[in-house]
C-alpha cells in the first residue's frame, strides 16, 4: 500500500506532537483511495485521553466530530496516527495488540530525536506489522 501526506500536514503533526510532550499525541487521518494509493487529505489532531508518555487512546467525542467532518468533506477514514516521544517509529507490542482495524493505516511519528522526527506508516493485522510506502509531498 502506498500512502501520501502533504508536507504541511506532516509539519502540523510534528508541531502538535512536540506540544504534547512528554505525552503521546494522537489523531485520525482521512482522505481518498484511488488505484491502490491512499491520499491523506486531512489530519485530525485529537486528545490523548490517557495523557501518558507510553499509552494513547482517542476521545470518542472527538472521533464523532471528526467522522461528521469527513462526511461533510466526502473523505473517508484511512486510519490513525500517534507519536512515540522516546521510542522509534515502529509499532510497539501494545500497538499491535490493539490494532483491531485491518483496513487502517497506522502512522507512527517518532520524536526519539526531537529535532529529526521520523514518520512511518504500517499495516497491522493479527499482531503482524508491515511497513507501507509513505511519501510526503512538497
Amino acid at each position: 500500500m502506498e500512502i501520501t501526506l502533504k508536507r504541511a500536514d506532516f509539519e502540523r503533526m510534528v508541531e502538535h506532537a512536540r506540544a504534547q510532550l512528554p505525552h503521546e499525541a494522537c489523531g485520525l487521518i482521512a482522505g481518498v483511495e484511488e488505484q491502490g494509493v491512499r491520499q491523506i487529505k486531512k489530519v485530525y489532531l485529537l486528545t490523548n485521553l490517557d495523557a501518558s508518555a507510553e499509552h494513547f487512546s482517542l476521545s470518542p467525542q472527538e472521533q464523532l466530530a471528526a467522522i461528521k467532518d469527513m462526511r461533510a468533506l466526502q473523505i473517508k477514514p484511512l486510519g490513525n496516527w500517534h507519536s512515540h516521544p522516546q521510542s522509534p517509529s515502529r509499532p510497539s507490542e501494545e500497538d499491535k495488540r490493539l490494532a483491531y482495524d485491518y483496513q487502517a493505516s497506522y502512522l507512527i511519528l517518532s520524536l526519539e530525536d526531537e529535532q529529526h522526527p521520523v514518520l512511518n506508516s504500517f499495516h497491522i493485522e493479527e499482531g503482524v506489522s508491515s511497513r507501507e510506502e509513505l511519501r510526503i509531498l512538497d
Partner: protein
Amino acid sequence: MKLTVAGESKDFKDGLTVAELLVEQKVDTPQFVTVSVNDNFVDKENFDSTVLKEGDVVEFMFFMGGGA
C-alpha cells in the same frame, strides 16, 4: 422503522436495541465500540436496554489506542 447508521439510512424492525443493532451490523468487538444515538453517548451497560426509535441517528466509534 428507519434509522441512520454510520451515515446510511436503513430499515430495521421496530423495538431494536443498541445491542441487537451491533449484532445486525456485524460488529465483532462490541466491547471496543462506543455508540452514540442522536449525539448522546450510550453507556455499554445500557446497550441491551436502549431501544432505538424511528429517525434515530446512530454512530459507532471504534476504540483506537496503543502504546510506545
